[in-house]
């Protein structure tokens, strides 16, 4: 198993443990542990199997299982994302293997990028979200648990499947897709009417930065991607979990803690998102400095959406308040000293 994927599986397991301990509804804890545990195991299997084809079949099985555990969305909608991802990734791997003109390699890069986007649930394949749907059957499971491991595996396999030129095209497409997701996600989180959709768009915006980091072939880009994924799995996901009751009840809070949460969600210092953004900007300046300007402008768009999401947490007390404090503390620690995260991923 590649170290990055191992680290992401551990982070997903930690996020699951947090969800079980700090989940607002007692009835959903057993469901979280059982079905969420199966999801983490599935993600681990995607990383552990020896070949890319087996990883795709595990992804397929996981997609089917996720679609049949129930939920408010129709079976077809739940099943389409992962299955389209498998089909596109399969075609991508197929085009990478066959002998032929250089265009085949480019097709392979397109298939891998499009498949990754469909699997994670980012543009151009956003999974619909329903605020009343249980967390385990919602598309957030793909955005924050399976998606990070899948992305690490696809990017690592793409490096071995694609030749140099196509690998460059693969990276460029990841950056382009990342920028689109940054713009669309941050604007959506700010402007959409539904709070649940705003949370989904905020995940998409974060994923935009992850894709940009993965597309930048320098070491700082990869480091930015792993820290950003940490920020998604152990920052945004737990905060989203804690906000679900308030989002359903449509209650908002203007307390000072909302501002701190908004700062964490926006990637302000000293939280982990800030370290990721710094690394990303440094990587962009190493490759092509105008990209850093575009990224910096995109990062400013996080502020309005994050202020809105910070307020959407509502009035949290007791166990949930402890949970928020813990999430903020962990993110501050990772933001101030991200080295252990990077060393664990061999970056």
């Amino acid at each position, binding site marked *: 198993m590649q170290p990055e994927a191992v680290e992401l599986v551990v982070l997903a397991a930690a996020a699951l443990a947090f969800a079980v301990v700090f989940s607002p*509804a007692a*009835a*959903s804890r057993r*469901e979280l542990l059982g079905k969420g545990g199966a999801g983490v195991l599935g993600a681990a299997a995607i990383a552990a199997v020896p*070949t890319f*084809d*087996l990883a*795709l*079949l*595990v992804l*397929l*099985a996981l997609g*089917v299982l996720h*679609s*049949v*555990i*129930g*939920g*408010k969305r*129709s*079976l*077809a909608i739940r*099943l*389409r994302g992962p*299955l*389209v991802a*498998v*089909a*596109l990734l*399969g*075609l991508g*791997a*197929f085009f990478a*293997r*066959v*002998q*032929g*003109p250089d*265009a*085949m390699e480019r097709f392979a890069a397109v298939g891998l990028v499009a498949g990754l986007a469909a699997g994670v649930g980012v543009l151009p394949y956003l999974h619909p979200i329903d605020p*009343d*749907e*249980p967390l385990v059957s919602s598309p957030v499971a793909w955005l924050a648990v399976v998606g990070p491991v899948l992305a690490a595996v696809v990017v690592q396999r793409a490096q071995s499947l694609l030749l140099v030129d196509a690998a460059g095209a693969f990276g460029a497409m990841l950056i382009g897709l990342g920028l689109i997701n940054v713009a669309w996600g941050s604007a959506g989180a700010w402007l959409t009417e539904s709070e649940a959709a705003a949370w989904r768009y905020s995940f998409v915006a974060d994923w935009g930065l992850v894709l940009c980091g993965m597309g930048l072939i320098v070491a700082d880009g990869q480091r930015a991607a792993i820290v950003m994924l940490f920020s998604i799995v152990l920052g945004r996901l737990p905060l989203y979990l804690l906000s679900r009751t308030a989002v359903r009840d449509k209650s908002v809070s203007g307390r000072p803690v909302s501002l701190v949460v908004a700062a964490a969600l926006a990637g302000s210092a000293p939280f982990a998102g800030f370290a990721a953004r710094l690394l990303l900007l440094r990587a962009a300046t190493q490759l092509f400095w105008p990209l850093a300007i575009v990224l910096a402008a995109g990062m400013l768009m996080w502020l309005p959406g994050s202020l809105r999401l910070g307020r959407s947490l509502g009035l949290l007390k007791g166990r949930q308040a402890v949970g928020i404090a813990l999430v903020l503390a962990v993110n501050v620690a990772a933001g101030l000293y991200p080295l252990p995260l990077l060393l664990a991923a061999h970056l």
Partner: protein
Amino acid sequence: MVDAVAAFVAWLGASVVVLADGRRGLALGAAISAAGMAVLALDVAGPVAAGSIALGGVVAATGRLRSGRAGWHVMPAGSTPRLVLCIAVALVALWIAAALTTGPGVSLRFTAMVVIGLSGARVLGADEAPALFSATGLLALAIALAAGTGQPPAAPWPFLAAAIIAGGVSWITPRIVRAA
């Protein structure tokens, strides 16, 4: 020649899955397509792989007969776009497999592309569980078959895994639960 016939049979079966809405039509399509892919798998990965695909296809077809809309319902009214899709995908796959790409294994390349493409299209176009799960099973088998296009001889593991998925998915009865 055998490979070419097997590739045609695999396309025909996948097309029936795309064109059918009834349980019998879907089962027949899955069985035919799996038979074609099993013949191709024999060449690239040996008898274990071929047997896995054949068995997976049989189990998938049998499971499909258990649930879904009764009857065949092949090419119901309004299915002309699906028919055009089947032919267009086949032509594009044939062009890529025979003219654009090089090396032996034209039939294998054609089958992998056409079955993945048609299964993906069926998933995007279908709303009912039987059609979705039939396409899922074919997609799993085609992903395993595509592994055979690699340079070293393909191992049987992807074929076994694909057969388990294809066989298992056809026996699933989805349920709707309320939010917790």
